[in-house]
């Protein structure tokens, strides 16, 4: 079996997850605590990828970063290559596609955290940033970890978006889900079976570890 698509899937998922931790955490914090009007609209925008068909999202991303677009031309001028049909383009699409899977568990955990703990930390001498890292994140770590793991697993399993934005370039954009599809198309069932079983086992192990870890943390009162 050719392992390269699997490694590429995991690499894509890891990069997406790490970037989403940085991007989704402040978004979730903002949505959890803001009293601004229009919060519902903002929540709807961030949740859109949950209901949008992946091919539609992939199409919008493709049009936005294609070689005729401003972003695509800017990227080409800067790096001398196309943004669409590249690993970086797939990362962008994956971030957008998995954003609600990261934001929503984090937002729920932030909202459920006792706000007096944050206030207590301020009276104990922490500024707002220190309080974010020493109280909000550890207090909501079950939600943060769940968001990270879900976005990782969701990225490993994505198909329509990466097909639209990345195509199927071996070693560059041909991830496991696309490779399985192509194996089936070519009647290579042994390869399709092996790759599908690896993904199945991986998904099961990841979810088991997350549920086990969440239960242990929940006993300590973190969310």
């Amino acid at each position, binding site marked *: 079996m050719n392992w390269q698509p699997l490694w590429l899937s995991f690499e894509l998922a890891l990069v997406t997850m790490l970037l989403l931790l940085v991007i989704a955490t402040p978004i979730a914090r903002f949505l959890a605590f803001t009293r601004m009007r229009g919060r519902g609209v903002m929540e709807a925008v961030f949740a859109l990828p949950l209901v949008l068909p992946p091919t539609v999202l992939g199409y919008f991303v493709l049009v936005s970063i294609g070689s005729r677009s401003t972003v695509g031309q800017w990227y080409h001028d800067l790096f001398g290559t196309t943004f669409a049909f590249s690993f970086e383009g797939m990362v962008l699409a994956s971030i957008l596609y998995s954003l609600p899977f990261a934001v929503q568990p984090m937002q729920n955990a932030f909202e459920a955290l*006792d706000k007096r*703990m944050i*206030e207590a930390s*301020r*009276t*104990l001498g922490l500024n707002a940033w220190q309080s974010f890292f020493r109280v909000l994140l550890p*207090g909501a770590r079950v939600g943060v970890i769940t968001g990270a793991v879900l976005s990782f697993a969701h990225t490993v399993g994505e198909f329509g978006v990466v097909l639209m934005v990345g195509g199927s370039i071996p070693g560059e954009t041909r991830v496991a889900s696309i490779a399985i599809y192509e194996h089936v198309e070519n009647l290579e069932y042994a390869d399709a079976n092996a790759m599908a079983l690896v993904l199945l086992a991986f998904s099961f192990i990841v979810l088991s570890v997350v549920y086990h870890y969440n239960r242990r943390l929940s006993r300590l*009162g973190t969310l």
Partner: protein
Amino acid sequence: MIIVSVKKQMPDFSMDATWRAGREITVLFGPSGSGKTTLLRLIAGLEQPDEGRVVIAGRVLFDDQTNLKPEQRKVGFVFQDYALFPWLTVKENILFGIPKKNRKQSAEWMQTLETTFQISQLLHKHPAHLSGGEAQRVALVRALAPKPELLLLDEPFSAVHGQLRSELRSFIKNIQQQWDIPVILVTHDLTEAHLIGDRLVRLEAGRVTYEGSVDGLAQNSSSELLAAY
């Protein structure tokens, strides 16, 4: 000397309270909804007055030119439900407000706190495994650990009963006397106010209606009014 003179307008409540306190236990006393907790939060900087002054021992925390952040005020706050950090042990909770750069000093300080407050047997427990009285004590020690200039206690007796309540009362009195720290304590229980307070401020609908000695309240209030609490 502590000077509090604050005004705050909220959608369904207005606060206009002026009073003073010394280095003693001042009890903020009044019925539910009279603004006692709001007043503590205004002193701690967790809420902002529309106008007024908050001064502790000559240090201005709030006026028309100054508005110190909660972390700059050196005011310890014990919340009604303690707000301990459940993912940390008791020891980690207590050390939370002490800067890490002073590790050696904080180890010595921790030793002093352990001895003074007899909490050695609790240090490695998590808050979920503490009784109500133990959690209350830990919350008090945590608030005192960064050496605040004022200690605020929001309804400290609400979750403890009987013998524990009496022990907690002695505990707070001892802290105030040994550390010579001013304490402002909120309660709606007049008996508690009499048993622990040196000075009493009665708050009704956001206004101060009595300020003076605990015993003086009885002479200033009708028996019907006192019975209402």
